[in-house]
């Protein structure tokens, strides 16, 4: 289908191109609401961010809305976090996202579009604190 092909081509053209960096402060109230939502009462999260908190810190600019021309819904395929330094409350973190890969796979229930993205998180001292690799799927 020509429309589908062009969506994939347009998304593939973005591979490796970094999105606009986004900066945010790790706020105590936000971390508390996040830990509460998970139901994690660990007092450690009064000073530090829990392992998956970075996904909540900032919406990373990837401009993937045109992927919505493909299929009818999104699925999260997986996430991989790499932690290089602790993320503490009060830290000012800059996140930069990029599309790492785009490919189509056909399965038993039709074809799927895979979008692999990577985000790097750097604190105010220019230390990379974490990297996230994620797989988003259109089905």
């Amino acid at each position, binding site marked *: 289908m020509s429309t589908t092909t062009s969506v994939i081509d347009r998304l593939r053209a973005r591979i490796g191109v970094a999105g606009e960096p986004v900066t945010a402060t790790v706020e105590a109230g936000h971390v508390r*609401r*996040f830990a509460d*939502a998970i139901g994690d009462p660990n007092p450690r999260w009064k000073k530090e961010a*829990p*392992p998956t908190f970075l*996904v909540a810190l900032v919406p990373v600019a990837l401009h993937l809305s045109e992927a919505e021309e493909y299929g*009818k819904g999104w699925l999260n395929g997986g*996430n991989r*976090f*790499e932690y290089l330094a602790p993320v503490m409350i009060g830290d000012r973190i800059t996140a930069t996202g990029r599309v790492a890969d785009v490919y189509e796979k056909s399965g038993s229930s039709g074809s799927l579009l895979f979008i692999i993205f990577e985000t790097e998180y750097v604190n105010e001292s220019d230390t990379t604190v974490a990297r996230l690799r994620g797989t988003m799927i259109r089905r």
Partner: protein
Amino acid sequence: MKVEVGQELPDLVKHPTTRQLVQYAGAQGDFYEIHYDQDYARSVGLPGVILHGLLKAGFLGQLVTDWIGDRGTVKTFEVSYRGIDMPGHPYTCRGRVTRVEGKEVELEVWGEDKDGKRTTVGIATVELSS
């Protein structure tokens, strides 16, 4: 406490509700309708609203950090979502030690639905502080 290959992490049983999905949607800033709008979820072929993959990752993160306590830090944490989970059913997080090399420990972690099916699987590596 000695850490050995084969050691099991204490189970963490969660009882997710639609209220919790809304709470998590707000806390993460993920307002995709499949997590709180039953009609929308059905319109895209789901049986109803489903748990956020990242909420299940959050549960598994808690499993790991509860086990570590103040003995160390998480270095990598990887999860794959293999199946959907619905609110109103218990979600059980489990894990076991798969490798110990000096201060570095690898854990296999997973989340099971009410039928014992592993709908989320993952690996965490942890560095112990002493």
